[in-house]
């Protein structure tokens, strides 16, 4: 190691990548021959439009951005899998050739055989691999399954093996695409332990991921890409915060569209009463699907009776993105009186939340209209609406508990 002014581990200068996407995806010779002269059969797609940055040795950098922002393309150019259209990307020092875990795995081979093949792709000799084999199998916790075909492995086992193989590369720079999207929490912790060790050893890690929380926790620095341009580069927490705000704004623009599509939702019920429209309203009474923690939110639904109904209720539930119900209530629980309805009569009912307790995340809404006494469903819309909540606070989890801290004793010297 020289003490000379540190050269960046990764150097990216005015990197441009254009893809030529065929408009007609026919890849037959007949097509090519009959369209020899036409050059306009391609659409140019600008994946990266002049990106520049340096990464110093030992930095742990997260590259974030929406789908199609160019982050994976950037990583592929860094590793040399794609060629840049112009500009340059220079890596100093050996890097790990796998961008994703387990790409070289073959389900018909045993763990041991897969280690051999993937080790060879990493550039390790057979002798070296044999020397490390026991350590690899132990780290992956797969020693007793070493001679089973990979197709009989659980996905967790495959991921453990893939990760263990990937870290065998004697690389100075690690390029990883969505590594964190796989595996359970324990495995992810293991990943980050290894990454932390790399950091101590002065290795450089570049991570492309959607997991903003992981970037906050583990990266020194984050780079935010948007439609192929670098829009933010700086301390991880501030860049991810900026990204969260952008996502919120982008959705707000999209969501001002005035119609809620009730046609394409999963719904059932006998139709005695039907929901005609469901709206989420903000403090000013405007339709929205973006809300802020601590501000008002109103769920409003308009419904029409198609038969005479006198004893009924309406309610809703809020789901987490994975379907778990976080909260729910109905007019019966809340002891709200609803009028009897004759066929053809309409009614609008709303539920007002003065201080929204949900924290940042995407949530889904289910609604139901039912008979109060008997389990008869008039209309049920299952997780038909999605809305987002953005928080300006750093509170953890899904809910703001709304409490406050207080110091309840005097400051005293400890006795004894």
């Amino acid at each position, binding site marked *: 190691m020289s003490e000379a002014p540190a050269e960046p581990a990764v150097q990216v200068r005015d990197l441009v990548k254009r893809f030529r996407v065929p408009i007609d995806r026919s890849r037959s010779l007949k097509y090519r021959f009959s369209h020899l002269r036409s050059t306009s059969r391609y659409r140019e797609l600008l994946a990266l439009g002049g990106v520049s940055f340096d990464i110093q040795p030992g930095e742990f950098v997260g590259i974030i951005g929406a789908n199609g922002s160019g982050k994976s393309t950037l990583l592929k150019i860094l590793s040399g899998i794609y060629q840049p259209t112009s500009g340059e990307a220079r*890596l100093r020092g050996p890097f790990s050739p*796998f961008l994703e875990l387990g790409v070289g795995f073959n389900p018909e081979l045993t763990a041991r055989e897969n280690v051999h093949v993937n080790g060879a792709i990493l550039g390790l000799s057979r002798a070296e691999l044999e020397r490390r084999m026991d350590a690899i199998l132990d780290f992956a916790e797969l020693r007793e399954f070493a001679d089973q075909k990979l197709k009989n492995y659980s996905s967790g086992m495959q991921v453990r093996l893939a990760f263990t193989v990937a870290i065998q590369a004697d690389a100075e720079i690690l390029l990883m695409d969505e590594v964190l999207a796989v595996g359970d929490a324990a495995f992810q912790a293991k990943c980050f332990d290894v990454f932390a060790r790399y950091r101590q050893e002065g290795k450089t890690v570049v991570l492309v991921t959607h997991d903003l929380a992981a970037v906050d926790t583990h990266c020194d620095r984050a780079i935010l890409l948007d439609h192929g341009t670098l829009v933010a580069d700086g301390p991880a927490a501030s860049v991810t915060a900026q990204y969260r705000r952008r996502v919120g704004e982008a959705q707000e623009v999209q969501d001002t569209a005035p119609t809620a599509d009730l046609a394409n939702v999963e719904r059932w019920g006998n139709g005695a009463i039907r929901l005609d429209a469901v709206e989420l309203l903000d403090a000013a009474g405007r339709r929205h699907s973006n809300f802020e923690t601590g501000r008002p939110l109103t769920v409003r639904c308009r419904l029409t009776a198609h038969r005479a109904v006198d004893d009924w209720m309406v309610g809703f539930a809020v789901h987490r993105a994975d379907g778990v119900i976080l909260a729910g209530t109905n007019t019966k629980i809340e002891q709200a009186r609803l009028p009897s309805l004759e066929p053809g009569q309409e009614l609008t009912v709303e539920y007002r939340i003065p201080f929204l307790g949900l924290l940042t995340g995407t949530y889904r809404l289910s609604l139901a209209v039912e008979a109060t006494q008997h389990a008869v469903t008039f209309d049920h819309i299952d997780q038909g609406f999605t809305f987002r909540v953005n928080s300006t606070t750093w509170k953890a989890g899904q809910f703001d508990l709304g409490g406050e801290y207080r110091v309840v004793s005097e400051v005293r010297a400890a006795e004894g």
Partner: protein
Amino acid sequence: MATQALPAGRTTRYLSLTRELALTNFKLKYTGSVLGYLWSLMKPALYFGVLYTIFVHVFRLNQRDFPLELLVGIVVFTFFAECTSNSLGAISGNAHLVRKALFPLSALVVSQSITALITLSINLSLIVAVAGPLGRLHLGLQSLLALPLLLELYLLALGLGMLLASLHVFFHDVAHIWEVMTQFMLYGAGVVFPASLIPLRWRGAFFLNPLAQIVEDMRRALVTPAAAWTGQLVGWEAAIPIILSVALFGAGLLCFRRLAPTFAESL
């Protein structure tokens, strides 16, 4: 341009990668079948059985040495067909790997040629081991010529493999065209009949085809050294197929090198 990953010992690295990939191909080819590796012997043998029945019993091609000449032809042809058709899908069939990992892509094709070479060696050894003691082979000094012929065959098949593998990424038609070509070669290269059946005035053109020349001269080297070699049949023009083989190898290599950087984004 990104610098090469792990530059240390590139040749060694390439060789061990190719070996591992070739072994994997060989294992995968027969995985799940009861007879396993035996199929690499059974297939040409069965093929031989069928063609032998047709040509000797139906078409009455009763020359004494024809069966072994047929067998040599089939073994050479099997290598050619296996090597080229497996190479053809070597890149497009590994799209996931090609898009997500950086390694010398040519190793995928070369490993396929090695796998086919393993089968060829087994088959040839078996012919020599079985037919040799039966006195049906004429092994002598001229048999050493089989080695340069095998080298020519290998260069031809690998060159075509490289060419096909790179073109298949961009044009899927190549697979169909090549399938027909391969079938055609069975007849067009004189695999299933002796070259003596070809009218004299067509022989010059016939032996322009490197595979035809290799098959014929392999027969001289192993089975019927006394008959005319292609050099004796067509004179100096016998050099053309050899030059063609080497040229195809060069063209395949060049084409692959030119196109390889765009494989990942074209798949």
